């Protein structure tokens, strides 16, 4: 049994496997399948100041080895989370990452202030490609990433700030650096790639929103490349994700410089994906005689 504990910004996670935002709700449903205290952490469904009903359906489609989604940030609002779900997650002993989004800089400041001191991390979703009014606008350019990061940071006195980067950008390196210079304590990537699937019989996009965010196994090589580049451009911790389906996939991200990983779409293909991935990571480490997961972080050498 290898030691799977990792430390990100001074917060200890019992293992590096975190549920990715939007795929795990607030943990209650998966807890009906297995005890979620087994996983390292949960990034909550993306929350906004006020409740949102989200996009029309269909909200999901499938491609080869990938899925597309356009939920449009349906969520009960941050206050509802604080009064209804936070205690449940804390009692489970998982690291709680509040994923948040806003339409304006002011929204980001306000929502961070509400969560300050209550959760283990705030993860800034500046990259959700589905919300017309904001989302993408902040996540594309280094200047706006820096601006939104510093507004959020100013509102967080005691909770570390994680900034989640979009892959639909010109330079992941410049954007990672912009988050760092805006005051991010760590960064996470990647969010989904904007894509489209067409129903050729109706000659219409399958998803009501027309476009959706692509995630799942098929995006992994692009995500690995981006995580490697980002991790080597900043000196704050990086949380890697994008298409992780197995323990070996998670190890690949960690070898590229990720201090922890998030798992999203795999939870749909296999409800038990996260405990399985943790076990597979442990088996791989044992098989290679490695006692501590931290030994593998950032060990890839380019050719």
């Amino acid at each position, binding site marked *: 049994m290898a030691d799977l504990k990792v430390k990100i910004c001074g917060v200890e996670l019992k293992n590096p496997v975190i549920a990715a935002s939007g795929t795990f709700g607030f943990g209650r449903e998966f807890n009906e399948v297995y005890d979620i205290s087994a996983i390292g952490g949960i990034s909550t469904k993306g929350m906004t100041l006020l409740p949102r009903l989200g996009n029309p359906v269909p*909200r*999901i489609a*499938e491609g080869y*080895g990938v899925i597309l989604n356009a*939920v449009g940030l349906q969520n009960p609002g941050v206050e509802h989370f604080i009064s209804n779900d936070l205690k449940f997650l804390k009692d489970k002993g998982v690291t709680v990452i509040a994923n948040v989004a806003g339409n304006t800089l002011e929204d980001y400041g306000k929502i961070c202030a509400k969560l300050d001191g209550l959760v283990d991390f705030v993860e800034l979703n500046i990259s959700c490609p589905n919300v017309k009014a904001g989302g993408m606008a902040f996540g594309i350019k280094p200047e706006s990433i820096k601006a939104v990061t510093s507004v959020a940071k100013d509102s967080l006195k005691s909770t570390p700030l994680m900034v989640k980067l979009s892959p639909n950008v010109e330079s992941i390196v410049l954007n990672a650096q912009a988050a760092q210079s805006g005051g991010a304590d760590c960064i996470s990537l990647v969010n989904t790639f904007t894509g489209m699937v067409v129903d050729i019989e109706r000659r219409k996009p399958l998803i009501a929103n027309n476009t959706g965010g692509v995630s799942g196994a098929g995006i992994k090589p692009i995500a690995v490349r981006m995580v490697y580049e980002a991790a080597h451009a900043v000196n704050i911790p990086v949380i890697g994700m994008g298409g992780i389906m197995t323990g070996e996939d998670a190890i690949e991200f960690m070898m590229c410089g990720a201090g922890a990983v998030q798992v999203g779409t795999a939870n749909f293909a*296999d409800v038990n994906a996260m405990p399985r991935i943790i076990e597979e990571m442990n088996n791989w480490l044992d098989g290679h005689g490695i006692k501590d997961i931290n030994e593998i972080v950032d060990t890839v050498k380019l050719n």
Partner: protein
Amino acid sequence: MKDLLATVKSNVSIAENIYAITLTLTGPLKNISGGQFVNLSVGEGAMLLRRPLGICKIDGNDLTLCYQVKGKGTKKLTEAKAGDKLKVLLPLGNGFDLNEFNNIAVIGGGVGIFPLIAAIRAYKDKNFYSYIGFRNKAAVCLLEEFEKSKLLTVTTDDGSYGDKGNAVSAYFSDKNRPEADVIIACGPPVMLKVLKEELEKRNFNTPCYVSLEERMGCGIGACLVCTCKKSDGDNARVCKDGPVFNIKNINL
């Protein structure tokens, strides 16, 4: 709710483009109500999403699902052979709860009849009055499952079997329609929409429960991709809050 590795016992065509697959589970399924469904893995790797299929029949450790070949997942499923292993997450959602009713009108269209079969099978001593519709004669299947109904009307869109028409119009135009304490229905979205309109138009106060379909991600209520609209404007999750809803409470 559990994810099981089930063994395919048989997988046969029962009508044009419709198959029945029987899976042997590691133990018996208890307390299942019609309308509950499973999330079946059809092609790991390439197809990351599971396919939701209504529970149709349970015999001891054997679970039968009936499916129409629609797209690549159900097409792939037709290739499953006896002895193959498939992952199946079950049971999911809330089914029809008929405990307090005795006289039950059943309205089903196309693949919508499968969850209704499970509802009928779940109750031994109730009176069912069934109205079921198919596209044409080639699509007709599983009529034997409706035979214990006190009354059975079968329709086809083109009149090639039974009465010409559809299940909803057959129900409302039946002059000898028995008094029902509840209506349960499942079928294509347009059928349910017409059913809702007819009930409203006629001021029916018989409670009516319908089973909905929506594209799904997790199947357990966590991802919010399977939303339907409630009449109060809020959202509900088809997979977790449904798939069976009181028709009054949802917009169709």
